[in-house]
């Protein structure tokens, strides 16, 4: 199966053919895959070289002329390195863009921490007005990319990974999907964590919500789920643990509730190895999730 990242250039190439307003801005990374698109649309496939501040600034400048820029590189270099450009050139200028990242939290563990960005979504949370898509499958990535480009002049962040769930679900670019219903808690699985969450909660009587659009946070679906499953909430996110805790707490602010936040740990592992090894090290493999979710919900039962 191809990866979300593999799907990016072919999808955008078709979008470039369809929509003369769209331009792709790159900083070398991923540029090879746009060769054909560049021949067909030389003015709208732009590689600025290894210049990430210019990458965001130029993307914003394109938007100021009425175009719809899609700006792409690894998450570390797209969100973290030029963060002030994201904040000012897009936010403060009131300009829109689609930022599409690759490498996610630890897609290339052998590459080490320089190419890991578990904090990207938390960082984007300090800004106003961004939609954040975190697909869990290449088909979902394609759908969400199309939603992102079609979203007028909105500011949209699409977080692509080489990791994937086995099956795609019918995502709509807005709310959470209810994958399983239970009565003893709500587990929100974000993007690529869904398969592990479903395996981990097989024998637990919990509702599982699947989130691929995490900002705006679908507070209404979470509230509705807690009506029947209670207000013990577990968030499982493929980026920094606790990133969505404020959003979940705000959604349930008028109800007594508990939140367990699982995700990538803040501590730098200083390990190479494989994706699977890093998933386990962060406690996001099915066995670890089962133990941590079970303990959280079990304690509640004992206390009650």
């Amino acid at each position: 199966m191809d990866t979300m990242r593999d799907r990016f250039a072919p999808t955008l190439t078709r979008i470039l053919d369809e929509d003369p307003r769209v331009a792709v801005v790159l900083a070398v990374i991923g540029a090879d895959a746009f060769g054909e698109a560049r021949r067909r649309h030389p003015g709208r496939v732009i590689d600025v070289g290894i210049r990430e501040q210019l990458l965001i600034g130029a993307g914003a400048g394109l938007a100021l002329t009425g175009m719809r820029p899609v700006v792409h590189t690894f998450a570390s270099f797209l969100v973290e390195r030029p963060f002030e450009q994201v904040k000012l050139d897009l936010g403060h200028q009131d300009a829109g863009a689609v930022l599409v990242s690759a490498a996610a939290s630890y897609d290339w563990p052998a590459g080490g921490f320089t190419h890991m960005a578990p904090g990207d979504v938390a960082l984007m949370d300090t800004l106003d007005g961004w939609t954040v898509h975190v697909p869990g499958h290449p088909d979902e990535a394609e759908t969400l990319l199309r939603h992102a480009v079609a979203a007028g002049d909105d500011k949209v962040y699409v977080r692509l990974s080489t990791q994937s769930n086995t099956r795609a679900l019918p995502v709509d670019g807005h709310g959470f999907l209810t994958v399983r219903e239970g009565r003893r808690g709500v587990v929100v699985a974000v993007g690529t964590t869904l398969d592990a969450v479903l395996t981990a909660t097989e024998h637990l009587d919990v509702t599982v919500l699947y989130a691929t659009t995490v900002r705006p946070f679908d507070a209404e679906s979470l509230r509705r789920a807690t009506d029947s499953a209670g207000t013990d909430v577990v968030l499982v996110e493929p980026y920094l643990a606790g990133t969505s805790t404020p959003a979940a707490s705000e959604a349930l602010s008028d109800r007594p509730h508990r939140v367990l936040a699982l995700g990538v740990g803040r501590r730098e592992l200083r390990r190479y190895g494989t994706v699977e090894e890093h998933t386990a090290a962060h406690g996001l493999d099915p066995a670890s999730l089962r133990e941590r979710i079970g303990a959280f919900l079990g304690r509640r039962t004992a206390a009650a």
Partner: protein
Amino acid sequence: MTITEELGRTYGYDDLAWLMGRMTGDEKHGPAATSTLDVVWVLYDRVLRGGPERIGDPGRDRFLLSKGHGPMAYYAVLAAKGFLPVEWLDGFGSYASPLGHHPDRTLIPGVEIGSGSLGHGLPLAVGTALGLRAQGLDDPAVWVLVGDAELDEGSNHEAIAFAGPAGLDRLHTVVVDNSSATHSRPGGIAARFEVAGWSTATVDGRDHEALYEAFTAPHPGRPHAVVARVEPKNP
């Protein structure tokens, strides 16, 4: 040349001191404001094609004030040219005023970018030039004003290094050089642009004719940088 009329009044260069005098409370940025006065005036008075009636017109020339510190000269010229009411100047920097100590494009008619943090205007101008070119709008010129100290920001060097080889010949940078950069530049400011394939000119930033000549010099196939030298900030 004093062309613009607003409510029956025509403002010219000689009115700018009076217009700037209506703004108070930004002593810190005072020297920065006057350093740009002549450059901004000559651009708006004689070079830029556009005006209050062409805000939002895709074919207008763009002026991006990257050096957003001390925008009094900019505001005075915008008022003189009818982009904003002269009365707005009185509230400069106050809560109810759209005119801050750094400009906000969403609050002021005809202002192309919000600026203040250094090193953002030139990359935005590069993107603007790319966007116009991609849409076949080959006529409008893009101008960006930066300070010599602002050029120290690495983001500007990313933009300079890209724009030359990319042949962005509708892109123009004017560097107001008041010798405020922290470390000296071997070869001078223009050399930085020249090695990246830009056309350059260095002129007296107070001499209106020299500025006009430099601003309108042909530069086929290449972006153009004008270094406008004014009196040192710290003599």
